[in-house]
Each structure stands twice: as C-alpha cells, then as structure tokens.
C-alpha cells in the first residue's frame, strides 16, 4: 500500500464526492449466478444461525428460520433444507468433469465450482463456525444426525478455510471484493459495513459519498451479528413463540407459530439480498483480468478434491499438526505473492502503488543491444542490454532484479547502471537469458519493469515427515471430535442492558 496513493484517493474523493476505482479490471471470478448466502445469528451465539437465506444472486431466496435456534431439534430441523440443498448443488456442479492434460499426465477436475457469495467477512467466519459445528455431530438419544447436515458442515468448513487463499473465488465476501476494487473515504475499520461502502461508491444524485455512506451505516443492518434494536424485537417474538409452543418441536405445532419470526428476518434479509445483487452486478460489468480463469481453475481443483473426499466419507483434522501448519502457511504465501504480481502486471491502476514505492519503473526504451556478449563461467554468451529513460528520477541498487511486465513469467533483468537523465533517470538493464524476440521490447516502446514476477521460485521440498523437536508439540493434536456437548442445555434468558449497572462488561 502506497501512502501517497491512499492520500491522493482521500483528497480526490473528498473533493469529487464519489469513490474511485482502485483497479481497471475485475480480479475475482464471478459466476452467473453464484449462490448467495445471508446469515443472521442470535446475539452472542456464535453457532446459532437464527435465519439463513440462500438462493441465486439476483433471484429469489429461500429462508430457513428455526424460531428458537438454541433448541437443537428446532435448529437442525430448520437447517436441514438449507443443508440438503447446498449438498445437492455442490454434488451436481462437481459431477461434470473435464480432462486436463499436463505433460503426459491427465487428470480430471470439475468443469465448474459452486461459488458462494456472502455480504462480508464476518459471514465467512460465521459459516466456518457453523460448518465446524455440523461437520462432526454426536448422536443424541441414539439418533444419528441427518447425514445432509454433516456433509453440509464439512463443505462449509472447507469453503471458510479456502476463503483465506488470496485471490480465490469459491467464497466471495463482498466487503473484501469492494475494498479491493474501490477506494472510499472509509477507513479499513469502517469498510466492514457493506452498505456504507456501496453507498460511497454509488451515492444518490447530489449527495456526497460521505453523507451517503453515513446514512447507510446508520440505518442498514447487514448481519450476521444482530444489533441491539434487532434483538429486542427478536426477544419479544421469541418469548411469544416459546410460550405458544410450550416445549413442542413438531413441525405441525411450530409451523403456524413461526410466521412472525420469519417475517421479522425477511424484513432484515430483503435489503441485504438486494444490496448483494447490486454489488455483484456492478462488479461483474467490469472486464475480468486475464489471470482470473487460472485462479478459478485452482479453485476448481481444490473444490473437486474436497468434494470427492467428503462424499467418500473422508474426515479432516480440525487442528493442524506443526507440519500441516507449515505447509498451509506456504500454500497461503505463494498464492498471495502470485496474486499481487498478476494483479499489478495486468492492471495499470494496480501497478501505480509499486511505481510510487520504487518497486517498479516505467519509461521509454532508448536503445537496445541484443548482441552484447558477457563471459559466463568459461564461455562468452549473448545477452541483451537496454537503456530505459524514465519520467521520474529513480533510485535502484546495481544488481537489482527486475521483470519486464510482458515477460513476468520468464527470466529477470538486472540493473547495470543508473544515471541522471533530464528530469528522470536512464537505467541500463541486462537480460539474464538468451535474447529472443519475445523477450525483447522495441526501441521507443513505453514499458514497465517491476520486482513482481509470476514464475515459481523453484521447486520446494516438502517439510520432513518428522519435524525437529523445536516444531513438535508435547501431544499430537486431537482428532476431529464433536463440539456439540451442551448444545441441548436450556437457553440463557435474554437480559436488557438497561437493567445492568455496567452492561459494557459483556461487550
């Protein structure tokens, strides 16, 4: 992040009254239509989805409302249609496979993957917790939980974990998507409110982005964590519901009683659903960056592998071993570096921060010598030398490795010399590979070099099977276990904060 860039954005947005694009391309795959999920929890209850809405983005949604989500029977009964539908969609998408040829090896991966779109990162975390809860359920009273709940739990857990992979598009939190694509007057803390970000991007006519964002922030409720005003209403409705059902959990009794709670959550979901559709529509209109299909292929591969494993009854650890943790870290770091590189190389707007921070240089090729010879060990080899005249003065150490953005997947160039040249600098660079036409710019071309590249840094050996004692815990991590003990306990009574001397202690 370039501070000059952020300051420039803040100044111009304040002056112009609307948000500015950070990118000229869309760097996230958006399928049409993705599956939207909008969740509302009961306050403070991390595992209790009081309402789940799901359906195609831009289309109608289905709503699952438990009534009393702290009652296991009611909760699972309400979640079942959602779980079954999710499993069905995932299996259906994974069923169509295409062959992929890599050298002499052919593998098969799903032709598509089910993309899930949620309003914010908090919903990603909420789905992950819900997935953890459902993925390993214990029997209750000798009755095994419905397999669809368990399978859906495992899928949700995978989606939430995969959401950490930079550039992935299996689970897209829209607040993050907007923060990557737009600059607003909102600080990172405030960008968690999707409605406020959207209102700054597209304020009503004659309204400044700040005022529009503030109005949205003050009035919009996005979830999944409810605000006080929402749960005051929920509390009243729930009290009436629980009194009327008198402990009953049968659908025949519950059905007629649940309508007011359902209507309450429908009022909350409707605006969020419309907001999600509007945001996705706007971002989808932007052309996709060239690397988007490659990243989605990686997603499809992970999706296919996971679905095969889960539908075959496979289990995953809930706590990584030290070796797994090291491998996970690497799996997250490498995509991050590549994602950042691809974004900046393909998108001129995303390259600007690197130019400002001195990690990239742009200029006109003043001369090219592709017959230059250097002695490499024992024999002289042909190399290419170019002189690049930059618009701005640059400071680069000799020997610095840079990649031309047109060949960022290929060999690097090295800085041989930097001299002052009018208002800018003249940089002499040498290509560290045999000069071929594809590797060489033309004289007079305006080109960009940067520290970013998309080639692999080499094959990395897997970590040893037996980690050294410094990375070995005293006890191996516990195998996956149910976490539902106590979920059938009587729910805690709601407490009005106004009746407490210091309600802040429960924040």
């Amino acid at each position, binding site marked *: 992040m370039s501070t000059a860039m952020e300051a420039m954005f803040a*100044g*111009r947005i*304040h002056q112009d009254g609307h948000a500015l694009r950070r990118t000229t391309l869309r760097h996230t795959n958006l399928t049409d239509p993705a599956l939207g999920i909008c969740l509302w929890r009961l306050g403070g209850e991390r595992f209790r989805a009081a309402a789940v809405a799901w359906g195609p983005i831009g289309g109608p949604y289905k709503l699952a409302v438990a009534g009393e989500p702290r009652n296991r029977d009611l909760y699972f009964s309400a979640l079942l249609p959602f779980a079954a539908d999710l499993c069905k969609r995932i299996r259906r998408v994974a069923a169509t496979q295409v062959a992929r040829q890599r050298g002499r090896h052919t593998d098969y991966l799903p032709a598509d993957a089910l993309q899930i779109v949620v309003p914010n990162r908090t919903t990603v975390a909420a789905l992950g*917790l819900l997935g953890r809860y459902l993925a390993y359920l214990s029997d209750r009273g000798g009755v095994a939980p419905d397999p669809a709940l368990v399978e859906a739990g495992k899928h949700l857990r995978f989606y939430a974990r995969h959401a950490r992979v930079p550039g992935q598009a299996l689970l897209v939190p829209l607040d993050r998507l907007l923060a990557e694509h737009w600059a607003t007057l909102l600080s990172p803390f405030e960008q968690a409110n999707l409605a406020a970000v959207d209102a700054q991007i597209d304020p009503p006519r004659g309204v400044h982005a700040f005022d529009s964002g503030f109005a949205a922030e003050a009035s919009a409720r996005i979830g999944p964590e409810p605000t006080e005003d929402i749960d005051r209403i929920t509390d009243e409705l729930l009290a009436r519901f629980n009194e009327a059902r008198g402990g009953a959990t049968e659908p025949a009794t519950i059905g007629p009683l649940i309508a007011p709670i359902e209507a309450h959550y429908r009022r909350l979901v409707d605006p969020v659903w419309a907001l999600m559709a509007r945001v996705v529509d706007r971002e989808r209109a932007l052309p996709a960056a060239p690397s988007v299909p490659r990243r989605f292929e990686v997603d499809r591969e992970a999706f296919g592998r996971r679905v095969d494993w889960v539908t075959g009854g496979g289990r995953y650890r809930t706590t990584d071993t030290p070796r797994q943790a090291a491998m996970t870290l690497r799996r997250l770091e490498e995509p991050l570096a590549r994602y950042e590189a691809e974004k900046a190389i393909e998108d001129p707007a995303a390259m600007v921060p690197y130019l400002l921070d001195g990690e990239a240089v742009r200029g006109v090729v003043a001369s090219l010598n592709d017959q230059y010879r250097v002695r490499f060990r024992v024999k002289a080899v042909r190399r290419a030398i170019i002189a690049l005249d930059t618009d701005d003065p640059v400071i680069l150490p000799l020997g610095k490795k840079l990649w031309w953005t047109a060949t960022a997947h290929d060999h690097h160039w090295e800085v041989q010399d930097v001299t002052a040249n009018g208002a800018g600098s003249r940089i002499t660079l040498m290509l560290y590979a045999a000069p071929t036409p594809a590797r060489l710019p033309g004289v007079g071309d305006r080109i960009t070099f940067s520290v970013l590249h998309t080639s692999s840094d080499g094959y990395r050996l897997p970590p040893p099977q037996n980690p050294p004692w410094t990375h070995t815990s005293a006890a191996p991590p516990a195998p996956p276990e149910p976490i539902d003990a106590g979920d059938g*306990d009587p729910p805690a*009574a709601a*407490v009005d904060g106004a009746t407490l001397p210091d*309600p802040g202690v429960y924040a």
Partner: protein
Amino acid sequence: MHACPTAAVAFAARVDTNRVLTGTTLEMPFGQSPFAIGRGVAFEALLRRHGHAELRRVLTEGLGVDFSQAGIENLREGYQPNTTGLKLRASVTRSRMAEIIASPAEPVVLDGAVLRADVGGLPAFFEADEMAIGVGGEIVVGENKSWPVVDGRPTDEDALGSALDQAATYVLLGRRTLDDAGVDPDRVSSNAVLVTPRNTGLTAVLHRQNVDGRVRRIERLLSAVPHVADIATSVPADVTFDVAADTSLPEQERVDAFAEVSDRLGRVYEPASCLSSCGFAWACRQCAFATGDPALSGGVVARALPGVVSLSRVAELSHGAPASAVEAPVAGPLARAGRLYDEAVPVPAPRRRRPA
C-alpha cells in the same frame, strides 16, 4: 485513554460521552443484544453456582492446584453499588492481596476484586472477575468471557485481544497495589487466565497467556493520559457539553454546539479506536469531514500528510498545484500519484446515479 483533548476534557469533567448526543443521528449505536448480555450473565452465574463449583473445577484443572477447598470471597456482595462501595472493595482487595502473599498456604480466590488507579490524576476503579491466588503465593489475574473457544482457538480474535488487554490492565494495577503495600509487585503473575466456554455449550475451560507486552503498552497509555489539573487550567471556563447534551434543543443546535466545543478544545480522530469506544466518534467524524481533516480516512493517510491542512488541498496537489514550502515534501509524491493514476484510469463516463 488517548491524547484526544475533547475526550480528555469529557473524562476530566466526568461526562459520559455515550450520553451527550443521545437522541441525535450522531448517537453511537453501542447497545448490545439482550441475548449476548444474557449469555454473559448466564456464564458468570454458572461459574458461581453451588459455591463456585464450576469455577473451582476449572481453576483446579487449568492451574494444576486443588481449588476444591479454596476460600472464595465474593466482593460483589455486601457492598453498596456506588463509589463508596468500590472504595471499600478496593481497600479489602488490597489487604487481602497482602495477606495472601504473607501466608501463601492455601489457594484463595477474590471474586470481583476491585483495583484502584489514578487516571490523569483522577481515581478510577477497575473490577476484575477473579484474582486467583495459587498456593505458591503467586497472584494470578483472571477474566471471564462468554465467547467460546473451539479446537483451542478463539471464535473471535478481536474479542480475545480486548480480553487480554483487560487482564493486562489488572496485572498492572495489581502490581501497583502490591507495590503501594510494600510487597514485591512481581508476585502478580505475567500469565493471565481467561475462563471461557468450550465449544457450543457453556462448559468452562481455562487458558493462560503471557501478557507482559500488553502490560508495558497499557502502562505507557495510562501515563500518556493528560493530567486533569492541567486540562482544567487550560480549558476556558465557558466550555461546556451542556448544550450538546440538552435533549430539549433541536438536533442541529446540539450538533453545532458539540462541533464548537470540540473545535475549541481540539480533537484527535482515529477511526479504529474512536469508533469502537467513544460516544463522540460519529460527531468527530462529521467535524473531520466538514473541515477536510486528513484523519477522516485513518491514521495512515493523516501521517502521510505533514504540513497539508486539508483534503481539498491534497486533491489540488494531486492535480499538480504549486506547493508551499511546508507542503513541498509531500507535494511531489502526491502529484506523481495523481499523474500515474490519471494515466492508468481513464476518466469515467458520467455515471447513472440512483435518484436521491
């Protein structure tokens, strides 16, 4: 606890920042779900039920010391719910802590211990959930939280950070309390205890975490709080929050009154900390927008713009306006940022806006 003059004056004058702008559109929505509060109350009640049986179990399992026969003194009961009660509880806490260090034979738990601190020269009282004392004569600070831990990880990392900050504050104040009593302050352990529910139920589990780094940070923060006496001498006598807090007045009058007061006193708006804790945050943000304060977009932007007075000026400089001598260090990068951005992003066509 930061360097905002408006917040400091409100603190010195014992003004509740959450109430000043009540009823206006700038009132901060800090209210909590009754279910969330109910969960917190229920978890604490569970720990205290049947003679603190659950608390004894979790301390025994977590600290490796038998607390089944420990003396547990509940300082929440038997004292008035006011400043007098807090003073008495702080006094009892202090003497009990000294006694425990002097005779460390049996484990003891002070439930609802109150620690006194001077914040900006004013007395303030902090209530710790538990101060558990092990048989070794070491005092271990404990805090209860109702968010669950699953697979050894918190379900809310921000909440974990806040809870550890809270525990670190008690460690610091506990050490000061012992120091005042002439006892070695290092007898308060650096390893604080968090008691949280495990998994989906409310079964308690104990976690220990070293909070030394946080203790040092909180010590710095507390020492940076401006002294009330200094504030009192520097604040004009006619500065008051009364007009802003007067609910009988029209909203605009109250908001204007607040803006005038904060303009006179000065403010330090920092989105992340202000919006999560200060009742003036939205009002200060509004003032920051009105004046084009670079702090509006966060500390990173504000710190990048020394010498530039407003966001409007930032915009001008980004379009290549001539800079003054003070602005010169940042004018170059801003102009370059603007030029490169204009090259990269073509001027958009007029957008179809939503109707107002």
